[in-house]
């Protein structure tokens, strides 16, 4: 999209307030991320959507996929069919053809050609953004922590590859280093260090991170799509650029992939690099793939990593905050 001269904007909804509007159409026992995103659209309160030329969507979950059919009545939608068998060449080849089709769709939409050079320069910008985000998240490795998990969860931005955001990330990293030099810590030494895994959080849906930190813990790393998961691999800058892009996304260890071994490999690495004391698995209500996969993750964390594990299934509302506190505080006291 950057290569086409367009501005990519993430439309993931992260507020509870748009959910009632969505529930007028969607079932209530659906993932809050889908309902929140759709709620923005049906209540016409998202200017990004209103001004968009094209909605680019993917098949990472069935709920989203069918929701896109509903928004296709309002805007042109292009669906990328993400194949899910990570080990199969045919699956990758199909995914690559989907990525190639998106390039053609963007060329038609903007009546221009997207050259390999355009793609390479977009890849460089996005790799730079990924590297900066990763460097910022790596402040979580400090012990005692210099940044709270809440601060770290706020460094993402809706617009991709935006120069102002990259500058803000550089400032954030500088600030973190300065805090370390001056010994200004975000939490006392010995605070329980939590590795958060599972569904993504967004600005407005940091309830669980807030509760963990109110109970004295620190979320030092997030193995989620809003954290380190998409930053683990860069897009290769050599070779066919579309193939490099396709490869990066195909290897993302999302719970929609099967089998999803990449997630446990990443968890093991992050648990040791960030010296985590416990793993907390966040499942948004009705996110079936993460919900089912949590059984495998619990077994892996407890048996292979020999670490305490807790699964939290919740939604965007604040109604269970006190109940979450009981569980999280117990875990903190048990560590």
């Amino acid at each position: 999209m950057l290569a086409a001269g367009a501005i990519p904007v993430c439309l993931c909804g992260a507020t509870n307030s748009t959910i009632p509007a969505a529930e007028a159409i969607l079932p209530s026992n659906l993932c809050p991320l889908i309902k929140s995103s759709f709620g923005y659209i049906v209540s016409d309160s998202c200017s990004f959507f209103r001004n968009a030329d094209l909605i680019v969507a993917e098949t990472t979950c069935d709920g989203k996929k069918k929701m896109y059919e509903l928004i296709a009545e309002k805007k042109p939608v292009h669906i990328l069919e993400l194949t899910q068998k990570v080990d199969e060449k045919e699956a990758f080849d199909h995914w690559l053809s989907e990525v190639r089709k998106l390039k053609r769709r963007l060329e038609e939409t903007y009546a221009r050609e997207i050259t390999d050079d355009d793609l390479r320069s977009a890849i460089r910008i996005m790799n730079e953004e990924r590297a900066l985000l990763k460097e910022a998240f790596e402040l979580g490795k400090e012990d005692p922590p210099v940044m709270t998990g809440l601060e770290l969860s706020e460094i993402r931005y809706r617009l991709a590859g935006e120069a102002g955001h990259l500058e803000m990330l550089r400032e954030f990293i500088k600030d973190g280093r300065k805090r370390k030099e001056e010994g200004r810590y975000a939490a006392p030494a010995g605070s329980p260090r939590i590795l958060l895994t599972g569904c993504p959080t967004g600005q407005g849906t940091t309830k669980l991170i807030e509760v963990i930190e109110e109970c004295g813990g620190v979320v030092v790393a997030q193995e989620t799509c809003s954290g380190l998961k998409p930053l683990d691999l860069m897009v290769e800058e050599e070779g066919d650029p579309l193939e490099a892009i396709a490869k990066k996304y195909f290897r993302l260890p999302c719970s929609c992939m099967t089998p999803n071994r990449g997630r446990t490999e990443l968890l093991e690495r992050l648990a040791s690099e960030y010296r985590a004391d416990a793993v907390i698995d966040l499942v948004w209500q009705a996110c079936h793939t993460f919900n089912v996969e949590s059984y495998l993750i619990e077994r892996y964390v407890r048996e292979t990593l020999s670490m305490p594990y807790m699964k939290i299934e919740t939604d965007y509302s604040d109604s269970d905050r006190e109940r979450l506190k009981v569980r999280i505080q117990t875990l903190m006291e048990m560590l």
Partner: protein
Amino acid sequence: MPFCGVDIGSRSIKIVLFDGSGVISSVVRNSGAAPAENARKAFHEALDSTGIRMEEIANVVATGYGRNYFKEADSVSSEILCHAKGIAHLFPSACTVLDIGGQDSKMIRLGADGRASNFVMNDRCAAGTGKFIEMVSMMLDIPLDEMGELTAGSSEVCEISSMCAVFAESEIIGLTQSGTPVDVILRGVFRSVAKRTLAMSGKVGLVPEVVFTGGVAKNAGVVRAIEKETGLSLMVPEEPQITGALGAAVIARAKA
């Protein structure tokens, strides 16, 4: 020197004064609309009834939903750990604690020295908790403390299949309309509580000996229903409502 545990729960406040080996005095009051204020009153009632002055208390630990709002507390602790400690104090041989309170149910596995080694707690729904039984009590107009006796004797039971307390209510209305006897309905209610509770055991394991505590353990009908579903015999403390506060007092002694 006395120690004090204060458990401010969703439905009731429990105060325990503890001398290091046994309970000196305990008070149970409703949480009401101003739980912090009611807890303070109950705390002073407990002191007055024993003649112990506040300055004499070595350490106060608060637990339960209101734990952070009880200003007299020296520290707070999670109610799950408090129930574990309280039960381990009363029943040194216990391996599993089942606690059903006003709005939560919890299953806790005890490790060495009475510490919780694993636990599971119900999600946001109050089905299968004290609140659910209280609702049935109001619907059928049967006082809570008469329910246990009413269901003794027979084993005739009906199916209550709704997982949701609100839907279970409409199911019960249907049963009363069709003339199902109240004791049969109650046994159905208690069995559904037992089944919901057992659904939690997969994660923690129901390893004997099992102690059943929390306000709902005072209901002999629920005790029987869980024993029947599990085939285990449950131990129930003399005063199941105060085990969280007792555990808080045990922790207060350790911290003093």
